């Protein structure tokens, strides 16, 4: 019998991950780092979903199912995202998003 970790602990970790990711997206200027921060936010949501799913385990397991789908979506998103970053790098060899400002107005 493992000692039960309270739901609040999971949610606290998940919220911390989410805010770290969010702060990273808003402050970092490297496109790849921003992408990593977005992944962190997605994983924060995954952790919250799994934690809630364990709480509602008796009536509803859909939270765990949701997480499996999020894995797939996140993988697809990274594949397209890295391709876009790479393609942008080829036309203009910088990954700093502040440099991507040819369009204004």
């Amino acid at each position, binding site marked *: 019998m493992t000692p039960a970790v309270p739901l609040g602990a999971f949610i606290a970790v998940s919220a911390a991950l989410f805010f770290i990711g969010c702060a990273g997206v808003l402050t970092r200027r490297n496109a790849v780092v921003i992408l990593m921060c977005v992944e962190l936010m997605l994983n924060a949501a995954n952790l919250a979903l799994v934690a809630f799913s364990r709480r509602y385990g008796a009536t509803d397991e859909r939270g765990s199912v949701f997480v499996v789908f999020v894995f797939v979506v996140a993988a697809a998103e990274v594949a397209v995202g890295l391709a876009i970053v790479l*393609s942008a790098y080829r036309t203009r060899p910088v990954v700093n998003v502040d440099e991507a400002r040819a369009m204004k107005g």
Partner: protein
Amino acid sequence: MSNVLAVMPEIVVTVVATLVLLVDTMLPRRAERGWLALLTVAGLLVALVSGPFVTVPGTAFNGFVQIDTFTTFSRVVFIVLAIFAVLVAPGYLARHDIPAGEYYAIVLFSTVGAMTIALSNDLITLFLGIELMSIPVYALAGMQRHDRYSNEAALKYFLLGAFSSSLLLYGFAWLYGVTGTTEFGPIAAAVARTGLADGPTLIALALVTAGLSFKAAVVPFHQWTPDAYDGAPTPATAFMSVAPKAAAFAAILRLMVGGLGPLGTDWGIAFAVLAAVTMTLGNVVALAQTNVKRMLAYSSVAHTGYILAAVAAYRAGDSAGAAVLFYVIAYGLMNLGAFACLLYFDIEGTRGATLMELNGFARQEPLGALTFAIFLISLTGIPPTVGFVAKVFVIQPVLDAGLTWLAVIIALNAVLAAFYYLRVVVHLYMHETDERSAPIISERMLNVSLGVSALAVVVLGVLPDGLYAWALQAAAPLVLR
């Protein structure tokens, strides 16, 4: 088996998309690819017809999927928009060396995502639909791979899109946490019991609102819109500006009205304020633009505001939902058409024509100029076009819901918008061709599809009743009684 039949149109579109990709790889590199567009359109027509024949109303896949009048209506909207977007593209794709097969396949995959949003009955299906709709569109924005602007558009669209998706997902996680279910019906029942009593519900509501606002380009979550629309290849912009927006509003109707309707007193006023800010800012910034493509990008932000006003008036019942759906169709036809009219001008890269480059277009291409003018007049909201009728249908529920101030702001914004739309018409008709005018390209497929949609804009403006009655039916399942 009935599960498979329920999603038959989606399956057909997916099969057509893979078929197009397959055929494209088997063709020789230099072969003519214009007819791939016709194959795509044929597949979409099969999907359009298969909908009413094989799917039966009700839920499927253990409650993950719901087929109702809203689903049927939205499927038709998304398929029609995709057909239109495919038909205007071939000439541009060939001229700018964009891989045509991949382009059509991406449009099709995005359409499947939009259709999935319309049939979702669960947060999981909804999230999958939103992502399946958005991810292909990021790639679409960057299709002109050797163009710096196209890459920049894709990068900005992708980073902000992925960020908004993660906000939305975190909101969904909290929503599951507070209600204990992911299905819309039980979510509505749970929030109706508790109301907005506690912090977690508020967090969930705020995150979901922000996430969906990003997708629909609501101010202040619109910053990606002008750059993404401006830098993307023009036919891609035409598609991006309408289908993802229509899909975002399908998601808003399904989730905010269908699932979180009992909290409407809390989000309704927020949406009303966001709508007012969105339309005003969109129009004011559009006034300052000299590049028509960028001007249309800001004007599409303004139109988001009008549609959102109808969502905020959800209390008026069916007529509010019907106004959203009607405006989405009207906006889809006229905005896709207006962006597609920029395809007449042969300009290097992805840039759109400036006002000066439009000079004398009416002399060289009278029919093209006429369709462009019809789309612009409809966007302004002048009768007898569908844009006018759509605004009337929006203002009615807004007044019924007691938001008189919002109705006044809509009317004032329509006046503001007239200035910059009609300025384009002036350049088309009242300026002579000069050394600044852009060279013009005329293609039969572009002419015909723009002509048909301009005709639809006028016909629906004169005879809107049939479509409106259908929109009323489609809005019925979303309203809580």
